């Protein structure tokens, strides 16, 4: 008992008071900024292992980017990754960063279904389905509810049963072998329900987009309410994205 009190004293307060202004340590690769500096565009396009960069104008698709930073290392004057972790959007097109444009990424309010803020503003229960996820995004989603990020203080929580959920969070490129289970889980969630894609693999298939072992039909069938880019996603990207969606 005394030992526990000692530990509590040592630990102090661990939670991040304001998740919208918290700073991430080190050289975190968040929202990239592409300058208008002239660069060998062909070489730049070829450098990306995931084909996320296109030329004239130079654009970088965060839905396909694995945030490896190779482009920024080879073309430091052209591309720079900032520590801005607020990169969740509800419009797939907005994940495409164009050269010369340095604006924060935001939720487009006009594209949020009206019932989402009305019903889920104070409480959003989510069912997570890993469909070929490599356990990195799953890890960070668990971290989002540790004592530091403490996502549940906003009423956002992961629940065990789809029957208790208001939506589904999908990680991984959606494997053929998980396609049916994902559909069954989604069908079991009562209406209205949201779909959130967490991580590059879920948004575009990532490095797996060409393999015959995945089956992404499910994602073409429904409207996606939130895209959370990252490889893996950062807990702050997820929490802020969901908060913006339901506010």
């Amino acid at each position, binding site marked *: 008992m005394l*030992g*526990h009190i*000692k*530990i509590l004293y*040592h*630990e102090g307060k*661990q939670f991040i008071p304001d998740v919208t202004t918290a700073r*991430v*340590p*080190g*050289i*975190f*690769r968040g929202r990239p900024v592409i300058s208008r500096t002239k660069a060998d565009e062909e070489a730049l396009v070829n*450098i990306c292992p*995931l084909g996320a960069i296109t030329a004239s104008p130079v654009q970088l698709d965060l839905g396909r980017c*694995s*945030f*490896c*930073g*190779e482009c920024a290392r080879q073309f430091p004057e052209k591309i720079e990754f900032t520590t801005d972790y607020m990169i969740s959007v509800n419009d797939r097109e907005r994940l495409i960063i164009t050269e010369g444009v340095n604006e924060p990424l935001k939720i487009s309010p006009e594209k949020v279904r009206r019932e989402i803020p009305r019903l889920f503003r104070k409480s959003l229960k989510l*069912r997570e*389905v*890993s*469909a*070929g*996820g*490599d*356990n*990195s*995004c*799953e*890890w*960070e989603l*668990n*971290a989002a509810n*540790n*004592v*530091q990020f403490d996502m549940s203080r906003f009423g956002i929580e*992961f629940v*065990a*049963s789809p029957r208790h959920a208001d939506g589904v969070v999908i990680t*991984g*490129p959606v*494997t*053929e*072998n*998980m396609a*049916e*289970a994902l559909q069954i889980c989604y069908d079991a969630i009562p209406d209205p329900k949201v779909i959130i894609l967490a991580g590059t*693999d879920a948004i575009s298939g*990532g*490095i*797996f987009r*060409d*393999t*015959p*072992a*995945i089956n992404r039909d499910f994602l073409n069938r429904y409207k996606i309410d939130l895209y959370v880019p990252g*490889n*893996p996603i950062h807990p702050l990207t997820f929490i802020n994205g969901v908060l913006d969606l339901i506010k």
Partner: protein
Amino acid sequence: MKYTTIVNNQTIPVSQIPEIPYDAFFELNAGFVTDAPELHCVNYFGYPAGSKVKLICCMADDLHHVIHVSSCQVHPTDQLPSLASQLFCFEKFEREIHENFGIQFTGHPWLKPLRYAHNRKDPGQTIANYPFYSIHSEELHEVGVGPIHAGVIEPGHFRFICNGEQILHLEIQLGYQHRGIESLFLSKTRLSERVQIAESIAGDNVVAHTLAFAAAWESLCGYKPSPMLESARTVALELERIAIHTGDLSAACADIAYQIGSAVFGRLRTPVINFMQEWCGNRLAKGLIRPGTDQYPFTPELAQRLAEVLLRFEPEFIEMNTELFKMPSALSRFERTGTVSLANTTAIGSVGLAARASGLSRDIRSSHPYAGYHTLKHEPIVKRHGDVYSRLQVRKQEVPQSIGYVRELLKSMETSQTVATPPGTPAPGSLVVSLVEGWRGEICHCAVTDAGGELLIYKVKDPSFHNWMALAMAVRNNEISDFPICNKSFNLSYCGHDL
């Protein structure tokens, strides 16, 4: 000679591996492991060679620090006597070869599909129709769990046969996570793509898998990484072990509803993975390791930061452990729960943390040293009881050990300069075996190149490949309510198994 002998990360011409008839191949490899716990099969796989299938078996000798490689050629239509009929550790390997090529292994105890790979021989077999075992009795009932689990974890199906609350039998069906990793290594031909595939094999074991890939690739190219680069990679590997072991202790506390332990271990992990982000921009070290370069040099400033992080981390980690392991209510959940005997562990070819918790000293860091472990002289931590308690104790003791190794490495790596020598091109017609001890256990990557130096086959074996069977053994005769804590004490990888 019936086989050739190599060491970890040694590239040899494939022509140097003697090809022997299957009978001799069977006898040789069965002979290696029979009554010899110091020998175990690190990989056994097949690949197409014209109309035939070439089988290669790699047998690691932990005592003499070598790997014996043997091979044979068979027809896909062949009926071959099963090694698994006598030696259980071959069970999964034969199922994989059967699934991919259709070879029948007669006498195999259960030649069921392994992971429903997209390029399987018989596409008619689907994951929805897995042939589960069942027992017909009015006393017994079945419990199915998954593929989607209650927590935020990966998918897999567990089928229990229970007598009341007691588990008689557990069958684990995997394959839901299959993404075609091994064939993707062949179809993506750029090194920058391949290294990202290696990073995605298991996202909680990024350093270990990427290191295994980098070491294999560098060996194929005849590239020797600098001692500084080797030390930096070793630091990263040990940091990964520290971070995940701490997270696992948090999860174990959560499973026994010990809230303070769960909270403290959970938050203790953060400074370690945040240091990874300071070093390479990613909390899970994605992007850190690239063959031939140290694109994120380990600077003296980083070394000092890391020393500070560990100085704060260690006493808090020890304090929480001391409290946890003296609480009778915690101990009563850990002790004698989920026991795997030494005999079973050895029979199924278990590796890594799970093997060491059951008294089987298997640790690549000491038995087949690589990177910085040539100089560290690692002594594996081995426990005897094979229960949840032992597996947690291994973690509890490995973390301070890893901190010690990191400190030792930090002393020796005070100067740092960026190395960026392109590794070159892989040698044609060659084979390499790369072994790395990740936090779960032994990771084995095998690559074979063709006459043009392109990859002919790339095989990945995660420690979970064998250790899932250890979990199935562990829960027998336990209460079904203890399944979560048993599962968490192993914390095996679904995607590492399914690939």
